[in-house]
């Protein structure tokens, strides 16, 4: 059972402002049946240009209903400019906090408010900006980035709690982690394209890699390798010890030696036995 605050329970059991304002000034709809929660918000301005009435319809869990109820209570009496400043934290705070797994309910309230204000201001229906990261819940990179920035999120689980992204199949976890890292400033910088090696640098690196990485491994099996020459990108080697008579030596050469040298020196290298 969820640890809902008394106020959350109270707003679920006795939600304020359920309904739909027919002659609304603003309307915002977010969520879907597939996602498991959805909110339709309408508001009407009074003569003083403040929100005179706000109503909601919500499909979702108890905290989604309570968050919607809280949102309508918060924005009543506000100007549109003031309502535009309401954050998901304001909604959660109004309810005395929400379980962390349910923070997305407060984000849904904030999103509906933004859409309703956009409608009122005559701004075109905003398409989902950015690129969809979470296919399951249709969450874009910009939405995730915003949630991370506004709420100081540092983990994938926290992102899921706030915007649901990553909560189903999990295929997007790497992308979410990348967004978190980017916002926190720990993203691995795009690898710098290595500048072309001079011949002498290349030969030194190949020799060093053979000594450091490859020879010790081959020696474990009683084998050895000797660098004969480097001709452009052709690395000419001789296999020694057990390697020389081993029927799998060509596999060793291509799959192990060449892969190592490609990884550590240059992707263009080809290893040949002489």
């Amino acid at each position, binding site marked *: 059972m969820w640890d809902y605050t008394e106020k959350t329970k109270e707003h679920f059991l006795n939600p304020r402002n359920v309904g739909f304002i027919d002659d609304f000034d603003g309307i915002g709809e977010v969520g879907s*049946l597939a996602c*498991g929660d*959805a909110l339709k918000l309408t508001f009407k301005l009074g003569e003083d240009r403040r929100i005179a009435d706000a109503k909601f319809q*919500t*499909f979702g869990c*108890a*905290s*989604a*209903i309570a968050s919607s109820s809280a949102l309508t209570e918060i924005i009543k009496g506000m100007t549109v400019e003031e309502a535009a400043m309401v954050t998901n934290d304001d909604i959660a705070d109004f309810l005395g906090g929400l379980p962390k*797994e349910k923070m997305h309910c407060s984000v849904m309230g904030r999103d509906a408010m933004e859409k309703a204000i956009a409608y009122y201001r005559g701004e075109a229906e905003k398409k989902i900006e950015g690129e969809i990261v979470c296919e399951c819940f249709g969450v874009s990179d910009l939405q995730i980035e915003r949630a991370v920035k506004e709420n100081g999120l540092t983990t994938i689980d926290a992102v899921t709690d706030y915007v649901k992204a990553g909560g189903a199949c999990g295929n997007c976890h790497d992308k979410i982690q990348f967004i978190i890292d980017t916002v926190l400033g720990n993203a691995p910088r795009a690898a710098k394209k290595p500048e072309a090696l001079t011949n002498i640098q290349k030969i030194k690196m190949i020799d060093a890699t053979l000594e450091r990485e490859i020879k010790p491994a081959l020696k474990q099996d009683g084998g050895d390798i000797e660098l004969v020459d480097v001709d452009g990108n052709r690395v000419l080697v001789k296999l020694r010890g057990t390697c020389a008579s081993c029927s799998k030596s060509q596999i060793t050469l291509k799959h192990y030696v060449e892969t190592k040298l490609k990884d550590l020196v240059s992707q263009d290298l080809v290893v040949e036995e002489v």
Partner: protein
Amino acid sequence: MKTIYMDNNATTRVAPEVVEEMLPFFSDLYGNPSSMHAFGGNVGATLKTARERVATLLGALPEEILFTSCGTESDSTAIHAAIRANPDKRHIITTRVEHPAVKSLGEHLAQNGYRVTFVPVDRRGRLDLDFLYRNLSDDTAVVSVMWANNETGTIFPVEEIARKVKDRGIVFHSDAVQAVGKIPINMADSAIDMLSLSGHKLHAPKGIGVLYLRKGTRFAPFLVGGHQEAGRRAGTENTASIIGMGRAAQLAMAWLRDENTRVRALRDKLETELLKRVPNAMINGDPDNRLPNTTSIAFEFIEGEGILLLMDQYGICASSGSACTSGSLEPSHVLRAMGVPFTAAHGSIRYSLSIYNTEEEIDFVIDKMPSIIERLRRMSPFWQGNQSA
């Protein structure tokens, strides 16, 4: 407020008869059944009786009964035993609608070098048997199919599957946690090799499970470290709970008829009346092959958590296949595997009865549900225009 308990597939009330038989083993009769002295040995003798009672319930031999700590341990023991007894086989077959005890284990094994086939189900939750049989191979170590589904109550033809699987010389295990005590089970003329039971689903306490292991089945213990359970499950016996399990097995036999007549009638009344009184409601599962105590009803366009919390206001206990109640964001894997549309899956409620439910309770729930559903639908943005004429 009176509690109206209709969540018996989650856990059951411990029968007073069971508690009564257990109590002395918490106080005076604390001996260790492995001890040489008579004080402990006498406890060992009562365990023997308990084992015989469980064997009788299953139509099994006493030496085919292993006591474990829970249904999950029984499932894990069975499947691990089967794969360790067949170390050269790397394939497992189970279903998409198993309890997490088997499903998660299958997924875990799939990440550890095993090929795991999950058999799909149709819209009513019936297994695609042709798919299962087609996938049997010489590499298959074990097939594990639950006897009855915990969420929908759908009963699977495990006896028939077991025979086909045995014909191929493959081990067959069934998680019968939801079936035992609700439908007749007789291992004496069955091809099933291993069967899992859980005490707390049939009015014994939590913390006691049973693994039926057919005589002659190759086995490797999951817990090692002692000679208990004939060396097949180490650890000092949970004596009080084993005694309780024995008594519960006796009661289950005595109550089986009541379960399939009176309880079934109560379930049918609840279901029929709710479908009649609430528009846009439907049954999840296979009404023709179903446990007598279970009904899963989908109430369209609303979310299960709200339904449960409003039911809770009246002291009515049930559970939901909705995402919000579980802490995950997706509705139940069982309903998803069945292809239940999202409009319905999120608002699915499982009522699971027991012999302790009364007609008055059923009438009370029938009376309260329509207004609960209507109250939430009035709030739902999807409800307009969906009312049936």
